[in-house]
């Protein structure tokens, strides 16, 4: 079927639905990446926080020897947590771009397109993973310079990148859910601040689960960030291991992503109402 003829039967009428879905998802991500390439400053400004944690906080805390990290130095224990945290902090504010694009009118163009809502949501998640990977490269570089004992085997690095992609996708879709509920930039900024700190501190990012009081341990075990950190700690640093098991880490990350994608897809049209 020629494309002119396909156009007369409606867009994508000559393409299998799953293929169309993936391509539409990629277009959404492409739009975002193109904007990022025009103005990449955002990627570098995001680096300040992980640098502070790794350069200032970690060396000071290492001296206290108050946190039981097993056979890992505190710097090595913390580096995967800081990577996960920096990806989460970037992704959790991603929803504000949705509100901004709605206010600018840009979002309407995507919403009246034939792309299913789930493809729009997952396209944004994909775009967030690309930002996350860039952050991962920079955190790796800083960690290397700080003397973190990194594992540099290709499969381990690929595994770390997979964990980073999951984290970025999970927290960006979580952010989209929040954006669809609060709907205004001012309220979103408030909510973003409220969400990030509890997620960070109720996780194993900077101290192990074994140190936590019972109630906090329960929260940490339902926090997707804990599973992401656990996954990264096993794959990123020499001597690191998974407390939950890599299978459970991956399963929980996949489950969290599926839940947030489903909720965001359901709520997505509400952003315009």
């Amino acid at each position, binding site marked *: 079927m020629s494309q002119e003829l396909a156009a007369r039967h*409606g*867009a*994508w009428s000559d393409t299998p639905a799953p293929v169309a879905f993936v*391509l539409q998802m990629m277009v959404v991500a492409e*739009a975002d990446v193109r*904007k990022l390439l025009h103005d990449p400053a955002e990627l570098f400004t995001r680096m300040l926080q992980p640098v502070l944690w790794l350069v200032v906080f970690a060396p000071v805390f290492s001296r206290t020897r108050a946190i039981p990290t097993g056979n890992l130095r505190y710097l090595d224990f913390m580096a995967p947590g800081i990577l996960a945290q920096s990806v989460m902090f970037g992704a959790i504010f991603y929803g504000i771009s949705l509100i901004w694009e709605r*206010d600018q009118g840009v979002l*309407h*163009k995507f919403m*009246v397109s034939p792309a299913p809502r789930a493809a729009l949501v997952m396209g944004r998640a994909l775009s967030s993973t690309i930002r996350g990977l860039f952050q991962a490269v920079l955190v790796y570089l800083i960690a290397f310079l700080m003397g973190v004992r990194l594992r540099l085997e290709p499969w381990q690095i690929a595994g770390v990148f997979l964990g980073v992609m999951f984290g970025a996708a999970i927290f960006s879709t979580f952010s989209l859910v929040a954006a669809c509920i609060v709907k205004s930039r001012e309220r979103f900024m408030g909510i973003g601040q409220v969400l990030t700190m509890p997620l960070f501190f109720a996780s194993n990012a900077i101290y192990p689960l074994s140190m936590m009081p019972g109630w906090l341990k329960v929260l940490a075990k339902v926090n997707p960030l804990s599973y992401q950190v656990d996954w990264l700690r096993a794959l990123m640093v020499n001597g690191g291991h998974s407390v939950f098991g890599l299978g459970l880490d991956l399963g929980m990350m996949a489950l969290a992503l599926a839940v947030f994608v489903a909720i965001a897809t359901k709520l997505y049209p509400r952003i315009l109402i």
Partner: protein
Amino acid sequence: MTGLVRPAIETIQLTRRYDSLVAVDHLEFSAQAGSIFGLLGPNGAGKSTLIKMLTTLLPPSSGTAMVAGFDIVQRPADVRRNIGYVSQMLSADGDLTGYENLLISAKLYGIRGAERERRIREAFEFMDLTESAGKRVKQYSGGMIRRLEIAQSMLHRPEVLFLDEPTIGLDPVAKRSVWDRIRELRRGFGTTILMTTHDMEEADGLCDTVAILHQGHIASLGTPAALKSQAGPDATLNDVFILSTGASIDGNGEEGGAFRDVARTRRTARRLE
């Protein structure tokens, strides 16, 4: 699309409520294929709500409509495949170039390869924007942005094109340029165009049929010439408007629109400056 006997748009008891407010109240009208249908009404009359329902951005509270042969409630995805939409706000992305805006749109609608490049090139030529294709849209004038958006909405050759106040905030020269392109679209592609406007000259000169919406109902419907002759000798469309709504189009109406509508209109006007 020529040769169709069914109306391109047909509403059936279409209703939208916001709590106790009935924005669109059991609306019944149809727009013939290949015609330009104008929707007039004071702010808050229900024009934007109606257009959002017809473009599937907003679900009706009750009733339905057929757009391009598909039910907006039962088959919204098919509707979206066959329509184009230019929102009242500026939907072109200022952070991307004109070319990138069209490229992303073409990809969203599954237009591929050489065909995609041909249509983009033709769209730039048609809208007289070829010289500016590589510039970021934030550097475009208001009229150029509107022409780009109309080009963007026509890339996939939709059967029905919705234009929500396409010339709001434009100077007279830019307005005429947009009007010329709308006429050429209808002539060249046989596209049915439904547009909302506050501009009497625009409605009179461009539209085959005009509906005046007031408090969610159609107060008057007909060709501009018929409506004027019914209103009396030497009556203008503005006279028809006043008779139908008890308000003047240029701002003496009591409704004035919701805060959000007014804010949106001002935002659009600012971006067009």
